């Protein structure tokens, strides 16, 4: 029987928490990811929002856009929630729990830019939101297939056994693609027009880390 921490991807076990059937674990890999998330949550909490500049073409004139304080607070709240969801997704030891955290990352990503008044940004956020909602099908589908074919959802049990069907793994990766939308950057490029640099940063960061984690999960199970 191969243990999780015997596999090359994971590294040593640092420690694990137990919440009933769901046992999050900190290996060298997930622990490092979790540390990054904590740094970025702190950045989101303490940094001041950017002031976007508008430059008038054909002249030297430029002016700063106003920062709307309630909107900024809302984006900051969403950025912190997004950080918390990412942190959960990094360390969880259960497939279904991971998919739920991924869904939460998707919805907080929309929330970060939802306060923006820019029509283009909102349209991009809406299109992205549709994809994030569609992504629940492959995410939950992948998790349900794993439960049906192996009889377990715990990464600890599935690790190294190699019994998870390829379809379930493909669905999981596809689902994370939809929530974090990393390869489909067209939607995001438009979203970045929204104000608030440190908060918008969280969108990229969370999807990058979700990807790193899902690759780890797919390699381990």
């Amino acid at each position: 029987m191969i243990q999780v921490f015997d596999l090359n991807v994971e590294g040593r076990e640092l420690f694990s928490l137990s919440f009933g059937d769901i046992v999050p674990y900190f290996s060298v890999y997930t622990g490092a990811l979790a540390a990054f998330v904590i740094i970025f949550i702190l950045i989101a909490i303490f940094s001041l929002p950017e002031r976007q500049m508008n430059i008038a073409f054909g002249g030297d004139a430029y002016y700063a856009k106003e920062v709307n304080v309630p909107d900024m607070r809302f984006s900051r709240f969403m950025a912190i929630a997004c950080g918390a969801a990412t942190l959960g997704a990094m360390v969880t030891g259960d497939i279904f729990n991971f998919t739920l955290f991924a869904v939460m990352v998707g919805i907080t990503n929309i929330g970060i830019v939802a306060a923006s008044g820019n029509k283009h940004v909102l349209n991009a956020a809406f299109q992205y939101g549709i994809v994030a909602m569609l992504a629940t099908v492959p995410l939950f589908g992948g998790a349900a297939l794993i439960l049906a074919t192996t009889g377990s959802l715990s990464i600890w049990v599935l690790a190294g056994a190699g019994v998870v069907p390829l379809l379930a793994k493909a669905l999981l990766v596809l689902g994370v693609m939809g929530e974090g939308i990393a390869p489909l950057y067209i939607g995001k490029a438009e979203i970045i027009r929204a104000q608030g640099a440190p908060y918008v940063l969280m969108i990229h960061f969370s999807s990058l880390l979700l990807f790193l984690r899902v690759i780890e999960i797919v390699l381990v199970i």
Partner: protein
Amino acid sequence: MIHRISGILSNFDNLSRVYAVLIIIVILGGIISIPSMEYQGDRLYPKTIDRDSPLDPYDRGGEPFERTEVLAEYPENSPELGFTTAYLTPLAIALATTTPHMGTTIVAHPGGIIDEILYVTRGLDTVVETAILFVAFAMASYLYRRRDDE
């Protein structure tokens, strides 16, 4: 050709369509592998149905305030496993003795197998799920109020 593809990809109105194509490809590829899958889903929390029980279809046996056998993933992590499954509220007991048709109503009461899974062994799932609900409503109500102010 590449020009056309990048033209489609660069329009974010096509985002859901691109994603739908990806899913259709994966599902079409996956259909072939379905017969090779084996069903082993009843290893955890299997469903047993006893048609004669007033708690049908959720009768999992056990006396209130006694331990019941529950097939959890890590029984050692929940020392009081099975107590929630066996518990019935007084109202639930009253319902069970009067009619055999209220099993679904009774299981929605505090206690029972679904509560055991939702609150005890997989409590973190429900925490995340209510957090998602909370975030979504925070978004909707913030946008709604701002729309009102305008």
